[in-house]
């Protein structure tokens, strides 16, 4: 198999045993990018020259007998809402089309410190708002399994890049399912860590109480390796949690005998495609066969997650996006009559329709007279949703559900109906409202497209999730399937 399709842990072993060089790996990735990028369009900005130079440094260090950390020389693609010092970071928005950050996000510093190699910045829905990667101001990304379909959003570029062999690992961000849902649509592993586990310093904020950076990878081991690098307390982020980060690979031992897994009935009801449901039932059989105790459970407030999310996230977005006024960075409208006119023109010309829709929605929900009826009500419902999970985790180690109610849909299919588009995230949103960790792993194919299995865990219970995901992976081969 070509180098660009191998996993990070396979490539690391080959680097250490000198079967391959870091430069050969990165060149294989860029050869693949050249071959398919005009069809997939996963990247907004490529970083070839710097990447090759960094790979050479890794090879030089190896030649000098230096220790190579697990991700040294491994190609990583990064979503374009994560700041990269000296490399354009656009959030797929016209308003930031020319923004070159003067600093690295903490996750980038950590990747650099362990000598990973940045391939480029991946396409996304503008400011991470969307479920299809069609809201980018620049172009849409295509699903590598069927280019007539969406890769999912908003980390669609990162998921497509991994699936198409245009990188080995990737980072995305997940506010309401934006890592897990594209991972599901593209047949890769994607994880949203516990809120606070990964620093958000340098992540362009969308909804600050929900956003979390996380890994996209080809298998669970790679996911654990990337988590090892990006997790941990950061004094630069006041919402970063002080906790001791374990070695996540130590959970990958395949033993899940006696593990208690709950299947919330609300995630297997109406609105879930029958073929998707069928695959989830097969996954349950795998777990039962491995000695896990799987039982139905309930998260009674699940149906309120979508409306609560679509008040809370836009409210936070309307506040976070107030900073785009054309004064300090980004796009500025020409020929404004005065400063207020400059703000209004800049924002109207710079933001796309989905971003404006959410700013409007959020501003409305926070405005005088509506704050209590909408925003404060949604925060109270969030308490109930979180309490549902707390209760479930008193009884179960993990919860199991589909990642998305459907497989990848056709491009353009849901663009004119925002509410329909929002429904695609019904299986993922509640996790962000509750702040818990969850993973999506490939579980099979329906309608010739990948289906994702979602495992949700207790706060900081990433280890349990990885243990169960790894056990499934060891006993199936869905993660080995590649798009043609």
């Amino acid at each position, binding site marked *: 198999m070509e180098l660009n399709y191998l996993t990070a842990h396979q490539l690391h072993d080959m680097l250490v045993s000198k079967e391959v060089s870091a430069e050969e790996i990165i060149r294989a990735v860029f050869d693949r990018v050249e071959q398919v990028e005009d069809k997939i369009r996963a990247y907004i900005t490529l970083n070839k020259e710097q990447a090759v130079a960094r790979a050479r440094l890794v090879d030089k260090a190896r030649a000098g007998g230096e220790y190579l950390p697990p991700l040294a020389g491994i190609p990583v693609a990064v979503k374009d809402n994560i700041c990269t010092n000296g490399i354009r970071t656009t959030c797929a928005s016209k308003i930031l089309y020319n923004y070159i950050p003067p600093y690295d996000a903490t996750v980038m510093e950590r990747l650099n410190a362990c000598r990973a190699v940045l391939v480029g910045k991946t396409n996304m829905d503008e400011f991470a708002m969307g479920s299809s990667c069609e809201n980018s101001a620049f172009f849409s990304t295509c699903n590598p399994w069927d280019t007539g379909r969406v890769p999912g959003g908003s980390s669609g570029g990162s998921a497509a890049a991994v699936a198409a062999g245009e990188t080995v690992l990737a980072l995305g961000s997940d506010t309401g399912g934006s890592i897990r849902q594209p991972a599901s649509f593209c047949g890769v592993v994607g994880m949203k860590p516990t809120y606070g586990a990964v620093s958000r310093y340098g992540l362009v904020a969308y909804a600050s*109480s929900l956003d979390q950076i996380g890994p996209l990878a080809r298998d669970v081991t790679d996911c654990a390796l990337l988590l090892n690098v990006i997790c941990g307390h950061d004094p630069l982020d006041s919402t970063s949690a002080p906790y001791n980060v374990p070695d996540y690979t130590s959970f990958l031992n395949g033993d899940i005998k006696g593990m208690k897994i709950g299947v919330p009935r609300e995630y297997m009801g109406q609105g879930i495609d029958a073929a998707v449901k069928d695959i989830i039932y097969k996954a349950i059989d795998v777990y039962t066969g491995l000695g896990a105790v799987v039982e139905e459970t309930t998260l009674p407030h699940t149906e309120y997650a979508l409306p609560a999310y679509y008040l809370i996230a836009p409210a936070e977005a309307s506040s976070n996006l107030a900073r785009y006024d054309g004064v300090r960075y980004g796009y*500025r409208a020409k020929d404004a009559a005065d400063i207020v006119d400059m703000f209004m023109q800049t924002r109207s010309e710079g933001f796309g329709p989905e971003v*404006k*829709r959410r700013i*409007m929605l959020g501003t409305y929900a926070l405005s005088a007279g509506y704050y209590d009826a909408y925003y404060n009500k949604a925060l109270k419902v*969030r308490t109930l949703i*979180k309490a549902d999970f707390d209760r479930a985790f008193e009884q179960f180690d993990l919860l199991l559900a589909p990642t998305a109610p459907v497989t990848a849909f056709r491009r353009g299919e849901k663009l004119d109906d925002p509410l329909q588009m929002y429904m695609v995230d019904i299986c993922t949103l509640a996790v962000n409202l509750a702040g818990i960790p969850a993973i999506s792993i490939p579980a099979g194919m329906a309608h010739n497209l990948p289906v994702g299995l979602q495992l949700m865990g207790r706060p900081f219970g990433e280890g349990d999730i990885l243990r169960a995901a790894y056990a499934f992976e060891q006993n199936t081969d869905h993660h080995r399937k590649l798009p043609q």
Partner: protein
Amino acid sequence: MINIKDVEHVALLARLSLSEEEKMVYARQLGDILGHARKLQDLDTDNIPPTAHVLPLQNVFREDRVGEHMPVDKVLANAPDRQDNFFKVPKII
């Protein structure tokens, strides 16, 4: 439920200027979404505290120490317009 006047008011608060067509589209779409959100009113939340943030974090303090700031030129490098060490904007007064 949401009329054009509401849309115009919210757009002004959000510093967005919208075309007539956009106002009509947003009035309909925001109406649909907020209509769906009304579902939340079914729940009795009188004695439920709001959760703005899931982590039990208190205030975060760091030591007040003298440190290095980013150089002015670097800070201003992305400015659409500047003059000397300032961001330049249209006349305000």
